[in-house]
């Protein structure tokens, strides 16, 4: 049987798209999102002060992304429109992180299947609740898969290595300074140098704030927090290549066509 010229099987197309997206995402630096006692902390090494990787979507909802800036910026703007329209139409309390995660999932999934090029982004939608039990962290990958993360999430280049280090340091109900320390330790390769304060983008969703919970931490405030952190008990560098040392990892890898197949059931 002769193949039509230029034929590629759907499996091949999907695999190529997924590889392409993964490569794009892996080129960037990592971003870490984790719970602390008063809410959720976002930490992103980011040399730019104007092009944010972390931002506010709504009263209780924050957004973090890695990958191509123009692509996740579009997602961010769409998310803000979604949240503001819903909050205005119904009530401010009717805007939920879950709804936003579903919107992103359907948009990412559609682009992944319909477009020639999938988006090279990975995003986190985090929502702070009245209590730590009400907090939610959703991680979405380029193909529209949603992961309901517990406690922390890492994405971007070396996401798995970062997640491993994050898992080692993470405890429930950490004070902010400790959480920041854990995040920075996770973002720094063992023996590596930490990014200077000026190149860190740090923000929190603080449940104790009134009205809008999202707040950027920068300048003197961030320096004070970093100084308040317990002396960096540099964890003994986890030996071995982190990429191979995680056979039974809790967080499944981003699903490509060869991974878990999205069976069409609602992502959440």
């Amino acid at each position: 049987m002769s193949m039509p010229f230029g034929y590629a099987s759907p499996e091949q197309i999907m695999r190529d798209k997924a590889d392409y997206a993964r490569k794009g995402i892996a080129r960037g630096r990592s971003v870490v999102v984790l719970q602390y006692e008063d809410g959720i902390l976002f930490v992103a090494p980011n040399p730019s002060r104007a092009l944010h990787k972390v931002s506010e979507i709504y009263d209780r909802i924050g957004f973090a992304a890695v990958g191509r800036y123009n692509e996740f910026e579009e997602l961010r703007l769409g998310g803000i429109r979604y949240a503001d329209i819903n909050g205005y139409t119904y009530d401010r309390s009717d805007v939920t992180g879950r709804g936003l995660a579903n919107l992103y999932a359907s948009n990412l999934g559609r682009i992944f299947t319909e477009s020639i090029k999938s988006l090279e982004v990975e995003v986190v939608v985090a929502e702070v609740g009245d209590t730590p039990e009400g907090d939610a962290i959703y991680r979405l990958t380029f193909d529209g898969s949603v992961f309901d993360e517990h406690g922390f999430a890492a994405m971007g280049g070396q996401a798995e290595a970062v997640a491993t280090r994050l898992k080692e340091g993470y405890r429930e109900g950490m004070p902010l300074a400790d959480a920041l320390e854990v995040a920075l330790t996770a973002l720094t390769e063992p023996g590596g140098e930490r990014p200077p304060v000026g190149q860190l983008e740090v923000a929190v969703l603080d449940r104790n704030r009134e009205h809008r919970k999202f707040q950027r931490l920068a300048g003197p405030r961030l320096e004070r927090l970093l100084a308040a952190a317990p002396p960096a008990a540099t964890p003994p560098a986890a030996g071995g290549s982190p990429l191979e040392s995680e056979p039974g990892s809790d967080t499944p890898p981003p699903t490509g066509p060869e991974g878990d197949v999205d069976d069409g059931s609602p992502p959440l």
Partner: protein
Amino acid sequence: MASHRDLPVGLMDQLFHNTGSSSFTEFVGSRAPGLLPVRGEVLATPIGDQVPHATTIVAATFAGGVVMAGDRRATSGNIISQRDVEKVFRTDDYSCMGIAGTASTGIEMARLYRVELEHYEKLEGRTLSVNGKANRLAAMIRGNLGMAMQGLVVVPLFAAYDADRDGGRIFSYDVAGGPYERDRFDAIGSGSIFARGALKKLYRDGMSADDTVMALIQSLYDAADDDSATGGPDVTRKIWPIVSVIDADGFRRLSDDEVAGYVEQMLELRLISPDGPIAPLR
């Protein structure tokens, strides 16, 4: 039939299209106009007298900020329709607005305006300048002119902390828009003439925030004294005026207990001198 307030079909697909504008009202106006307050409707009869009206709002600047206060009464004609209505709204971290006129239209305007400011701030990553905020509100009032001509008048008072000047600023409006920047203090609503008269005698340049709050509470009392649509402090029900202070630390609404402190102090003195503080003649 679905109410006009339901999200229109297909809107979700439009969220990711760049509209080239950071205005929430413009985006909704072009993609889902049904969500905005209906304009251009012609009412069979003016209903201005039948819907609750919000009354007196006062505001005054002090060294490093601005205070806005409002009474709690809403009236429909000669009826007091609500005793504890809230007419001073936080619009973002450094600004607030008070409404006089048709309560429902004003509340809706305040809600939309808050989203408008926040939407810009989130999309652009910067807050609007104080002038920008004041102008934006003027456009919204202008948009309501058609309804205002039919009796649904709403006129806000806008106050904001301006970081560039480290001070508060006050803007007033008329039914066709504005803004008109006011020096030192201003009042709107049915009791505003009395409140403004009182503030003229009570306002001092360089007052502290504490003294400014007291001056505003005094002026609201004077307004309630002479205007039937303005409510005085309701001692038996413990309903106090709403007082909001905006300074470099942002917007803060005083708690009921704090306001009660000021009111009690004032009432005690009014028992001796019912017309309030007496300004020196020379």
